[in-house]
């Protein structure tokens, strides 16, 4: 048997070939989560940092139309609770994947499961830079001045970090046992978190205006 895709599996209930990991088109039974199911694979997306949002969106819509508890109100209790759990999982997974920091952390935990939740503190120079941006934002907020310049700088920094993470994850995917690379990824993820917080702050300021 040829396994062309990680989701190629059999239905728990009718043994039909599964097109999606969570749901059987043939007997309409929701599947239990199993080994190899993660935020990426449930959407049929490769386990990688570079995300194809359209693949996720399309798979999400198909899955939610198949799994949502509204369609299982009269189903047997096991199917009902699987439907509820899986739909919550779809939301949780989509939310995590669309946030690059959460996506990176999640992918790292998949590739290096023994690694704890420990975050690496970004280097001093980066921190000083973010404090400067923070001050610029506070100032702009107080005076109501334009945020565009600083917002662009922060966005540029974010793009750099994401590109760098893409590279690093690609290397890690080919060979997981690279402690130094894992540390570098940790540093980049730490930076990304700061950057996302700054962007959140920009959004908050914009919304308060």
């Amino acid at each position, binding site marked *: 048997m040829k396994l062309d895709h990680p989701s190629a599996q059999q239905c728990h209930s009718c043994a039909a070939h599964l097109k999606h990991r969570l749901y059987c088109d043939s007997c309409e039974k929701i599947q239990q989560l199993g080994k190899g199911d993660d935020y990426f694979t449930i959407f049929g997306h490769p386990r990688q940092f570079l995300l194809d949002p359209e693949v996720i969106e399309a798979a999400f819509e198909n899955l*939610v*139309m198949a799994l949502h508890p509204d369609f299982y109100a*009269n189903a047997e209790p096991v199917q009902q609770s699987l439907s509820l759990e899986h739909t*919550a999982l779809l939301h949780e997974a989509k939310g995590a994947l669309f946030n690059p920091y959460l996506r990176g952390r999640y992918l790292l935990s998949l590739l290096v499961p023994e690694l704890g939740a420990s975050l690496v503190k970004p280097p001093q120079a980066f921190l000083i830079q973010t404090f400067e941006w923070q001050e610029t934002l506070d100032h702009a907020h107080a005076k109501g001045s334009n945020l565009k310049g600083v917002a662009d700088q922060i966005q540029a920094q974010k793009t750099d970090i994401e590109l760098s993470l893409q590279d690093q994850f690609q290397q890690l995917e080919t060979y997981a046992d690279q402690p130094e690379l894992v540390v570098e990824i940790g540093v980049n993820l730490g930076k990304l978190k700061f950057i996302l917080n700054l962007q959140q702050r920009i959004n908050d300021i914009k919304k308060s205006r």
Partner: protein
Amino acid sequence: MTEPILGIDLGTTNSLAAFVSDTGAEVLENGEFSTLVPSVVTMINGGERLVGEAALAARIEHPQNTFYSFKRFMGRGIADVDEDLSKLPFEVQAGERDNLLLVANGQSYSPEQMSSFVLAQIKQQAEAVLGQPVRKAVITVPAHFDDPQRQATRDAAQIAGLEAVRIINEPTAAAIAYGLEEKTKGKVLVYDFGGGTFDVSILELKEKLFKVIATHGDTQLGGDDMDYLVVDALVSKLGISGDLSPQTKQGLKKVAEQIKMGLTASLEVAVQADLPEAGVNQEVHFTRMDFDQAILPLVEKTLEHVHLALKEADLCVADIEDVVLVGGSTRVPLVREKVEALFGKPPHLNINPDQVVALGAAIQGHLLSGGRRDFLLMDVVPLSLGLETLGGTFSKLIIKNASIPARAKEVFSTSVDNQTGIDLNIYQGEREFVKDCRLLGKFKLSGIPGMPAGLPQVEVSFFVDQNGLLNVTAKELRSEVAAQIELVPSHGLKRSEVSQMIRDSYEQAEQDFNQRNLVEFRAKALAIEAGLVKVWSEAPKYLTPEEITAVSEHRVVLGLAAKAEDPMALKAAIDQMGDLTREFADSIMGAAAKGVLGKEGDS
């Protein structure tokens, strides 16, 4: 056939049920019965209860015991209500917990009970229209209702003998009906201005998937507030001073409602204000301009919410394909003008703003009963949910506008050595500190084995189910202690109270049942008597003198039983009369039949 699931719009001012039959979604009413029930209850001293139109008609006669707008008190505490309770003609008291009670004849009722009276009336009317029992319903709530308010709505349904198979948001229900009807695609904004609450929801409509992307609102902003502003204007216009009696308050509210409705179609109205206890009986003139001026601040407040919802959705007015108006207050011309001015295009007017919510709820009920699979509505958490952490800060686990069902977990630890219990205080709101948010409940995770501070790993999981209701569980990961979790409700009813009210309502239902039987049996007794009168002259032909005496005596007994209050005794008397007259009736029938045959034979 699967059990019917009604859609019920449990409104602040009016409630309505709809149902999806073979011919589509329809509001449940016929010439005789109607599920359009004003959300008004009168508790008459002596235990009689009036609901709906009857209560509305009794409000001047029973001003202190006629309750309206109690939806605004559902799942709320005294501190949550901004309105001036002294302006109400009836008494509202703070309960023992952070809840509110309505007082009639020295007895207090929870807002849940009041709502249950309205729901029970709807259930009864719906059963009469459908001709079958109804036990399940999809009930709508304002999108901005928080967890206790939703729970209170479920409780009200349960007390009324209805299972709320789903609680859905009013604007969302409207969007279902609109989306299926109009087949619009793109971003749609639902502007829902009801009797007591205002909601704005922005949805993204695709082929089959209707997704709420943002919602904003105020559960204390509605047509009632317009009425109060008009009442204030009336008080100064009529020169009424001093404290207003309950009857004057009810009277003023009634006049204000008439003015508001009259001004929908005309630029000026004249309404007779008959307020005997205030010494007023005169015609008052009110112009649209006066009215618009009075309510302008309210309308502007709704537009602020619209702007906030747009911001939360990262959209601007130009992104909105269509604006759907829902709720009675959107009939006010100023509201329509302002909405149209904001969006630069007229709002969608093809739907009935008073019915669309119930219709959408009925369609959702149809989906839940397995009747269709042609759409899916994905709703959101209206307000962020989280825990109190160090220093009274609010740590959010599930963020506002997250799609439901939603879940999140976070790991916390202890701050003191050998701490065996952790208090978890659950809040809902958007502010940074818990003091500015709403406490949903507290629970204690106990039984953690003694460990140095910081070592225990307490994983707290939040799960918001498809009804938007929160479930919290906690587990200490090292010891696997998933200790006892007891959520103590801070608002609303305890489970035991709900059970008691259900028992009470059964007793009430029994009384109602007896009452209905009595009416039915009396009618039957009357019919029997009328029948006997018609044929009594023939009696000597068919009955012995003893039998005639027995029937005559029993006619008196039956007459007395029909005047008494015991339905069972009346039933017994009817049955006995049946036994006494069966042969007589058969003989008369036989004679009549023979007569017919004889005539046929003659011809």
